[in-house]
């Protein structure tokens, strides 16, 4: 079984604090946890919510029906009340009597610990007790969280958690939370998993211009900088950011920048520079619905084609599209390795939904395991940077040694110097493009979920992995023969192998967070597909498994 707890209120009211206390406690208990965030582009007011789905079986995406709604405002109750499942409960933060349970959280906090600041802890305590969970876990978390603050803060919070629990005592038993089934503790969001992977893999230079929803990774790496030995700088604009990363990788350390669609548009020229100069840069793009400023804090998958074609001229690139928190960790490293193996830009395409998604998974390794930069250290005076090779990959030396490293954005000869000779221009263009052969051979193949011979095949990429998996399970449970193929890398594509993976199902449905079906378009353009159905969602909210399953059966 599973159940979703939704904390909803205005920005600045403590939706996040309450949610994080619960996520930490519930994961520690050993429940399967998958939390997602929905917020407006403002610092105060509005209506934000935090969904915490808990279960006794692995969870992959957001839930459909809310079991417990903690409505911090009247508006939250009015707007979101109808999404509460039958048998669900509403805890309302006023004495209005409109909820199943009515508690003035701030008044309780004030009375218990003489501070309205602890009202979030009252709410967390109430939810834990309501679902029949041990409040001691929450107390442990509070002790850990406020270890550096004075004793009064810890005891005040604990008293508030207990007070919250007591206030719902007469309701306990009406709702039953799922039973813990895993060895608890570890919860990561997509941003943390990506940032941690980059740090562990040896990113040494990170720069960005802050842009939602990519800022989480930037913030994580700034926090980890001293521990892992990373220089982190906030650039004056995205153009500066990408050019700084080009400089840093030229000089010899792995570098990375992160942005969203609008910022990436500004980086397009720098991306082309990295292609021409053969620099191993990594750019993480967290999508939000566009065009232009669009919905800054919502999710979407509208930039696959943009990412594929960004930058003038033609040059090889790889695009990874992680679908889960675990893949955020695994594919960030793979992106860095691919960039260095082929000396060309690599892009990671993610979105708000995945960056903010928190998932209970096994502990991620935080010990440094630096990637191989694949540089040559014994190059001499006769070294040339762009020697023509069969693989398209030339020996890469870095400045400071005996070899002089000459790189140019202009067309250049093998020695890196500017030329207008067309033979050299073509020879170098061909050399660079030859890298695609190796990159294609080594590309990540789409992963199948469900039976090989399923009649209906869903195609997904990026963060639609989880909802897609759940949709397949729901369809299978209803006797529908369905499976899914998920693309964790969308470029380059090993066409024959992808064709083989798709096989010949009766129905092929591309499930995408955009309105034109960009993966389907790409697969058609390379000859993998002829026709397929589209199932799209460009509302700004992520898919749920139930929504996909329902729309497929219509």
């Amino acid at each position, binding site marked *: 079984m599973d159940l979703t707890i939704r904390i909803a209120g205005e920005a600045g009211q403590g939706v996040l604090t309450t949610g994080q206390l619960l996520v930490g406690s519930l994961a520690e208990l050993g429940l399967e946890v998958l939390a997602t965030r929905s917020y407006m582009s403002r610092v105060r007011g509005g209506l934000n919510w935090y969904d915490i789905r808990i279960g006794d079986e692995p969870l992959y995406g957001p839930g459909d029906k809310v079991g417990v709604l903690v409505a911090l405002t009247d508006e939250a109750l009015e707007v979101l009340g109808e999404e509460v499942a039958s048998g669900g409960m509403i805890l309302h933060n006023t004495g209005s009597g409109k909820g199943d349970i009515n508690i003035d959280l701030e008044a309780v906090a004030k009375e218990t610990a003489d501070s309205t600041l602890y009202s979030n802890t009252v709410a967390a305590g109430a939810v834990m007790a309501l679902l029949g969970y041990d409040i001691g876990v929450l107390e442990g978390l509070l002790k850990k969280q406020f270890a550096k603050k004075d004793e009064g803060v810890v005891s005040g919070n604990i008293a508030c958690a207990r007070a919250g629990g007591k206030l719902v005592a007469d309701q306990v038993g009406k709702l039953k939370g799922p039973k813990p089934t895993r060895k608890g503790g570890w919860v990561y969001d997509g941003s943390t998993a990506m940032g941690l992977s980059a740090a562990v893999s040896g990113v040494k230079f990170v720069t960005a211009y802050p842009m939602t929803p990519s800022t989480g990774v930037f913030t994580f790496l700034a926090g980890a900088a001293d521990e892992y030995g990373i*220089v982190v700088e906030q650039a004056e604009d995205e153009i*500066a950011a990408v050019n700084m990363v080009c400089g840093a990788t030229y000089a010899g350390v792995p570098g990375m920048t992160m942005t969203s669609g609008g910022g990436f548009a500004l980086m397009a020229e720098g991306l082309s520079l990295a292609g021409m*100069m053969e620099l191993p840069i990594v750019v993480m793009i967290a999508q939000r619905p566009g065009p232009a400023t669009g919905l800054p804090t919502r999710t979407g998958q509208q930039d696959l084609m943009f990412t594929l074609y960004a930058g003038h001229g033609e040059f090889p690139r790889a695009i990874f599209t992680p679908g889960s928190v675990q893949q955020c960790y695994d594919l960030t490293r793979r992106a860095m390795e691919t960039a260095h193996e082929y000396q060309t830009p690599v892009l990671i395409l993610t979105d708000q939904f995945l960056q903010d998604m928190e998932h209970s998974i096994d502990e991620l390794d935080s010990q440094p395991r630096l990637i191989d930069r694949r540089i040559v250290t014994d190059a001499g005076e006769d070294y040339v940077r762009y020697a023509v090779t069969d693989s398209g990959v030339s020996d890469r030396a870095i400045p400071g040694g005996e070899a002089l490293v000459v790189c140019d954005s202009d067309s250049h000869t093998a020695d890196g110097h500017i030329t207008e000779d067309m033979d050299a221009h073509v020879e170098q263009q061909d050399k660079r493009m030859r890298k695609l052969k190796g990159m294609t051979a080594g590309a990540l193949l789409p992963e199948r979920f469900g039976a090989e011979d399923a009649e209906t095949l869903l195609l997904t990429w990026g963060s639609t992995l989880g909802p897609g998996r759940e949709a397949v399970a729901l369809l299978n449970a209803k006797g529908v023969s369905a499976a899914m193929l998920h693309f964790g890398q969308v470029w380059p594509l090993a066409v024959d192998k992808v064709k083989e993976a798709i096989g010949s199902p009766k129905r092929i449905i591309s499930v995408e967070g955009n309105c034109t079906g960009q993966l389907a378009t790409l697969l058609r353009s390379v000859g993998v597909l002829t026709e397929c159905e589209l199932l799209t969602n460009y509302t700004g909210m992520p898919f749920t498994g139930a929504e996909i399953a329902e729309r497929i059966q219509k």
Partner: protein
Amino acid sequence: MKLAETDTKPAWCPGCGNYSLLKTFDEALEEAGVDRHKLVLVSGIGQAAKLPHYTRGNVFNGLHGRALPAATGIKLSNHKLEVTITSGDGDMYGEGGNHFLHAIRRNIGVKVFVHDNQVYGLTKGQASPTSDLGMVTKIQKHGVMSLPFNPLAIAILEECSLVARSFVGERDHLRATMVAALKHTGGFALVDILQPCPSFNKQNTFKWYKQRVKPVGDDHDPRDKEVALRLALRWGDEIPIGVLYRSERVSFENQQTVLAEKSLVEQYAAAEGGIS
């Protein structure tokens, strides 16, 4: 098509100030004792930006206007390298203007040499950010109406670590100024180098500059911000040249705790060897 034979070096016009500038730059590198293997010549796009190809060193000839961010990334990866930028007035003050403002704020330790001929050369004669008011071009056909950008005054207001101006027609002065910049260890060094463009700037000619430039006296105290600013604002009948200003700031790279002992490149090599 084989155009290698016709692709002569350098690609500059006869009489271009860049010829003596290149020669002086090489002499200054020699005099300052710069190891060519530890030297990275960064540039963007423009006639000045081609200079790195005509001398010896590591080269990063990047995008138009983007030399500063690229050089910043290089310097932070390996702050033990000497990182120079060769740029023009369009590349540095126009296309790269935002980076110019912020790189000085950062005080990243790069040496910036701007070949300032007050006109666009490579695109054939349009106004540049430093063109004088009223200058007529095929684009600005009623004359330049935008006030010229004053790079030195802006740099001084931002307390740039070293701010200097020189002229290609005063070779000893230029060499000495370049050496001062190359030997500078406090952070961002800006040398704005006045230079005629015989092809496209018929107004600010060699003779025009030669009659106006005047070295600041030995008694000038470059630590005096107000005096330096007054010198930077002077333009017209008399143009002061020399090191106008020095500030006491600590370079960006020297403020990084992560770089206290070793460069990032050195740290990576050590860790790479140590962990499989």
